[in-house]
């Protein structure tokens, strides 16, 4: 079997307690276009980074063209083996020209006249893939709109100087392309595979995957759970392969009594770019979920509501960050100070913070939300990740905020903590607080009274709790065809 371009056997990768890849087996044949689909956190991106040599796997084997590479698998050896990646976040240097960016991936573009060769190389490839692209090789990347940057990066991945092209990985390549250029790319994929290059295509556009791929692999929870020829899949069966049953957790979610239907509106907002008509509405005492694939405008909409741009918010709002290291905790402060910072104004006496009142508030919330520490004056970093996240919840809930915005706050939190926090959220909602909850975990949506699904920065569907199913969320997250 020398017809395989690349093969992975039992590849595993963990980040702390999170198991991103739980033993993946994957084979891509020479000249094959492999579609790779899966929901958030299924492990697609991690797998691609392993292939590109950007991440070292914890276990498992990798072979290229039937041969196991000698020595450490790295970005350089991946390049030398003819593997190229177009990552979701672009990998171009904005301060360099298109031709200069081509030079970066080609060690052979050097010496006298390298620039002329780089220009010719990238221009020829752009002409081949995207006829009428309108990009000059001397254009600086920073000057190009996002769509043209993506075109430049895609073209760069397919250019060849030294090592022949073996495998090109395209991670959401059409996310910034318009319908015409996306179609140009898909037809080029067929040309390229006919030449013997293997391609891995990752996309949330199922129509694209179904039409362009020869074979489709579905990933879930860090494993490849289904692999069939593209002809044997259709939208429904693909959805079914991606989904999982959410009945177990669903029970706890739906026990909540529905809020009064005539409650006042707490938040009314329209995401940037949303056409008139569709609106996001949260009533007092409601828990509203924001769903969809990661990075499709949910966080942006939360921030938009927080800054009250194009949004009406009744009463003060608080924001609970998901990326607690960079947006959440003050890591030089005590746990108590981290809890009370949002409420300092109500803790002042004669213009100074009243230490006794501050300590009392911190103690109250330690007991209410169950922060596990002997002393609230300890540094915040003495807590586990889950307890740090509880501290952020305490900060928001201890404040006067009536609307709580949550930006996927349960990332990397253990299940015990999650259950405690779920109970807390429901108790607070019963007391009349409103919650807007962006989550990448479909299970968590069962706690919501209503779910808005986002795609490409817009709300594509609003689902009431009674009608909620993973099928429907997936269906709304993955588009039929190009946007």
């Amino acid at each position: 079997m020398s017809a395989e371009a690349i093969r992975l056997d039992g590849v595993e990768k963990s980040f702390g307690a999170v198991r991103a890849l739980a033993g993946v087996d994957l084979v891509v044949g020479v000249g094959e276009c492999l579609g790779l689909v899966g929901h958030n956190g299924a492990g697609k991106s991690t797998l691609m980074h392993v292939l590109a040599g950007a991440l070292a796997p914890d276990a498992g084997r990798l072979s290229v063209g039937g041969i196991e590479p000698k020595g450490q698998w790295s970005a350089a050896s991946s390049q030398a083996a003819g593997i190229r990646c177009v990552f979701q976040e672009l990998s171009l240097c904005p301060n360099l020209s298109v031709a200069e960016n081509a030079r970066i991936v080609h060690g052979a573009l050097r010496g006298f006249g390298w620039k002329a060769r780089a220009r010719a190389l990238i221009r020829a490839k752009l002409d081949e893939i995207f006829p009428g692209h309108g990009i000059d090789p001397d254009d600086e990347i920073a000057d190009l709109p996002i769509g043209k940057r993506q075109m430049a990066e895609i073209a760069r991945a397919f250019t060849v100087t030294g090592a022949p092209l073996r495998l090109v990985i395209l991670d959401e390549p059409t996310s910034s392309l318009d319908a015409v250029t996306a179609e140009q790319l898909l037809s080029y994929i067929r040309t390229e595979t006919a030449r013997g290059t293997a391609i891995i295509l990752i996309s949330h556009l199922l129509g694209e995957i179904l039409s362009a791929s020869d074979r489709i692999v579905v990933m879930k929870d860090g494993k490849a759970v289904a692999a069939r020829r593209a002809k044997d899949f259709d939208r429904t069966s693909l959805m079914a392969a991606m989904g999982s049953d959410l009945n177990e957790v669903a029970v706890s979610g739906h026990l909540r009594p529905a809020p009064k239907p005539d409650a006042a509106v707490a938040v009314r907002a329209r995401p940037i770019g949303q056409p008139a008509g569709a609106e996001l509405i949260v009533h007092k005492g409601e828990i509203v979920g924001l769903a969809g694939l990661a990075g499709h405008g949910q966080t942006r909409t939360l921030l938009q509501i927080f800054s009250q741009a194009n949004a009406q918010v009744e009463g003060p709002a608080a924001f609970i960050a998901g990326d607690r290291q960079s947006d959440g905790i003050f890591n030089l402060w005590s746990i108590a100070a981290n809890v009370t910072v949002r409420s300092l104004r109500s803790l002042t006496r004669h213009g100074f913070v009243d230490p006794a009142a501050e300590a009392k508030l911190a103690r109250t919330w330690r007991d209410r939300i169950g922060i596990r520490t002997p002393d609230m004056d300890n540094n915040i970093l003495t807590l586990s990740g889950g307890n740090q996240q509880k501290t952020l919840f305490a900060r928001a809930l201890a404040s006067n905020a009536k609307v709580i915005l949550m930006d996927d706050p349960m990332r990397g939190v253990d299940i015990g903590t999650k259950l405690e926090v779920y109970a807390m959220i429901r108790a607070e909602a019963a007391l009349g607080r409103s919650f807007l909850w962006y989550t990448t975990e479909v299970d968590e949506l069962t706690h919501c009274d209503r779910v808005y699904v986002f795609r490409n920065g817009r709300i594509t569907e609003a689902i009431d709790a009674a009608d909620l199913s993973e099928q429907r969320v997936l269906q709304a997250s993955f588009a039929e065809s190009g946007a």
Partner: protein
Amino acid sequence: MTNPRQLRAALPFLTLAIVLAATFYVQPRTMSYFGLNLMLQYAVPIALATIAQMFIITVNDLDLSIGPFVGLIGVIAATALNASPALGVAALLACVLAYGLVGALIHARNLPSIVVTLGLSFVWLGIAVMILPSPGGKAPAALKAFMTVQTPYVPFPILAAVAIGMIVHLALMTTSFGVIARGAGGNPKALARAGWSMLRTKIVMYMLAGVFGLLAGLALLGLTTSADAHVADRYTLYSIAGVILGGGEFIGGRVNPLGAVVGALTLALAGAFLIFLRISPDWQIGAQGAILIVVLAMRALVTYGEKRS
């Protein structure tokens, strides 16, 4: 209307022209071979130090030790290089090597370059004071002769500045290595993904900075003829100001060697201009700062226009 990017690229040259015109207006006698020579001779070491700083800024770091480093080089060259040329050369090369090691350390341990180089500035100064506690020493005769050479028609400092700018421009802006160096500032992650060693790139850039710091120290000694550990303390800020005046930016690998040299010339000229205006030396630093702020404000305006269009 011209492209705002071109306008921004032209800004350093425009600034130099304005300062030059103002100087000629205040003191017409400077509009001569000897006048220019006198006014601009100290621009050569400043330009070299500015280029050194530019290499560091290219990879998104900042060097707060270049001034004392230039002073140390001068001290070594005025003492050891005379007494025992072999030892002197070895000491100077060791200084350049030390720069490379600092670059490696900053990258490998992910340290903030500002803190490391701020600490190092005291190390360089300390070593220089230990070698030469009070001003003294003697510049090697060849160095003195080179820095005061009388070139025909065009004064030496101008030729030197043009040569420095052109050479570095060719090396950094047009070679295939230069692309990697600037890319390391623009998107280090992308570079690492393409299989380039960031460590190696940083070491090379820091060593280049060391080489140009060395040249700056030698050039300055050739002019002052005797050494002083403190002679170049101000160069740290001059060099940063020169890079920024020349159109460079602190992060993102956006630098402009020709602009940086022009920025250094502008700073040197501004000093002379203020003397001609009989501004007391106490106020000169403040006045130079004011010029810097005006230029940067102009650039901010141009950038603002660029964003709006």
